[in-house]
């Protein structure tokens, strides 16, 4: 479902003409199967978020190839990336990333709006998902009026709105208390088993990593190893 072949990434920082190149990811080879939950762990600055951002198309790799849902995405234009995201990817963010001037309902239905779905169908589908994540009663509330857990549920509803085959989650439980964390992880497991949705989760949290079929460790931009549920498997070593 997700395939990264010899992916390298480096940032250029500093003023123009005096830029300094900082390598972030080195020769990443990664394969995630359909229906897998993969957790990516690693210290701060290890390159976890960069890896996820490359999968999201927010940044482009310096070299290497990325294939998502059978399609090579490394050369896509910005417009094509937008269409690809809408069709194949769902996103969960640590800080929820809800639009403050929109109600929970409006935030959740955004992917349907972008897709051009009619208002009637949107309403039905959005309320259905808000109910599923247990936030339907707060549909008319603005994000500022909701707790962190409630906001994350809206964000989850939004990410699942178009039934994406892949969900990319950057520290999805980072801003949640333990109760909300447990509920979210249960929901992820349920979706994974029920619909076969592939999840890539970035986390520091062992509890999050525990629901993963595989845990991949990153250190200084190198993919170290993968721990399967059946034990530790050496994935790649440098």
């Amino acid at each position, binding site marked *: 479902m997700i395939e990264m072949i010899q992916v390298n990434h480096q940032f250029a920082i500093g003023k123009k003409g005096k830029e300094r190149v900082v390598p972030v990811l080195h020769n990443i080879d990664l394969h995630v199967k359909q229906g897998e939950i993969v957790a990516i762990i690693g210290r701060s600055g290890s390159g976890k978020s960069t890896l996820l951002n490359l999968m999201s198309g927010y940044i482009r790799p310096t070299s290497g190839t990325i294939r998502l849902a059978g399609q090579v995405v490394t050369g896509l234009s910005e417009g094509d990336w937008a269409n690809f995201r809408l069709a194949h990817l769902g996103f969960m963010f640590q800080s929820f*990333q809800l*639009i403050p001037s929109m109600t929970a309902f409006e935030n959740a239905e955004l992917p349907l709006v972008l897709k051009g779905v009619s208002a009637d169908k949107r309403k039905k589908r959005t309320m259905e998902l808000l109910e599923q994540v247990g936030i339907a009663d707060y549909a008319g509330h603005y994000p500022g009026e909701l707790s962190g857990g409630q906001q994350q549920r809206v964000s989850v509803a939004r990410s699942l709105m178009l039934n994406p085959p892949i969900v990319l989650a950057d520290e999805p439980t980072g801003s949640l208390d333990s109760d909300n964390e447990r509920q979210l992880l249960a929901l992820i497991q349920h979706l994974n088993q029920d619909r076969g949705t592939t999840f890539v989760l970035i986390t520091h949290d062992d509890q999050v990593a525990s629901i993963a079929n595989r845990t991949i460790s990153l250190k200084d931009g190198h993919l170290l190893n993968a721990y399967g549920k059946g034990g530790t498997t050496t994935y790649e070593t440098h």
Partner: protein
Amino acid sequence: MKLTDQFRFVRQNMKKNKTRLFMTVLATAMGCSFLIVLASVGFGLQKSIVDKVVGDRMVTAIDIYGIESSNEVDRQIGPKNMEYLRSIDHVKAVTYRNYVQQPLIASVEGTEIASNGAINVDFDAETKAGFGLSSGRLPQKGNEVVVGYNIRQSGDNNNPGTEPPAAKDWLGQTMNVEIHQFADDGTEMKKTIPVTIVGIAQKLSREWKTDTKVYIGNEMLSEIENFTGTLWGAIRILPDKANPEGYEPPGLQEPRQYNEVQVIADGANRVKAIAEEIRLQGYISHSIADELEQVNLVFLIMKIGLGFVGTIAVLIASIGIFNTMTMAVTERAQDIGIMKAIGAHPSAIRRIFLLESSMIGLLGAIIGTVVAYLISIVVNFGLPLIIEGFMDEKVPADFRFSWIPPYLALIACLISLGVALLSGSRPAKRATRIDVLRALRRDL
């Protein structure tokens, strides 16, 4: 993304900062209004000066002097030429004025009038052409006539101090017209034809010119010609010692020749084409439209100049739109980033911002147009009062300082809309280039 949803986004965005929106729309409205009002002065003056002062008929008339020919007879306009002139497309009427070729002796209530002749006109054609009457109507029967405005101005009261009695008091009066002819034996024959005065011709625009003519129709001309046995009622001059040959005017069987022929077009814009066609056929002609072209050119340049100044005002307003849209993009950078992050197409984002700036332009244009119409009404009503009050000058009735033709309002709206779109295009493009990661990190 559906257009209705794009409009919903725009509405939501516009509600966020109503004061800023109001000020931007106000600036656009002022610019648009300024553009329309300035250009409307050019349109108003042109309409008043060209259309009103010069007069409709003068603009649409083409004078025909004759046909180019080496033969003098062929130069005259005959019935066939009249037929041809009437057959040209967009010719409303062909008029002529021929003097009855004998002194007019006429009296009303026993008082002889000092007329300078009777003129035969085609009243059917004159009705279409717009014969200028100061009062009364055009004849409908053979024994009805129109008289000149100064018909009652005799030699006695023809001095600047005294006003002659008004001709319109003679409306409905019977006028006895006396005609003469000499028989072969030299005896003078007379006939009196009673006619009714039904109309008074318009006062001539030049004060020193007087119109004391009697305008007769074709039926009366026939009556005169049947009596005299000559075309246009011409009097025979019998041979005598001083003039042994005498003069025998053309008889009724001879072809007619028409004088003061005018071709009237059905619109000022047709005059040029008709004049061209007539000239190609060898007619010698002239129309005031030839001169008006120059006047119209001056007004066109004036309108373009005023419109240009007005457009500058709209361009200044566009700076406001640009500023507002740039602020809007900056303020909404995170929202745009989130939308992009979940799959918003850059073109959809650009469309939302272009829609917003065009909404501002459209609102401004509509308000500006309404205000411009109000200003135009106030100026047309108020300025004559001010001029009359302070400058002691009388403004002609119907004079319009400002006139807004619908297409001027439309052009101004289109300019405002175009300028708004242009001002919004750069911020809209900027919105599509917002970096998703920086927006998500709130680093913008």
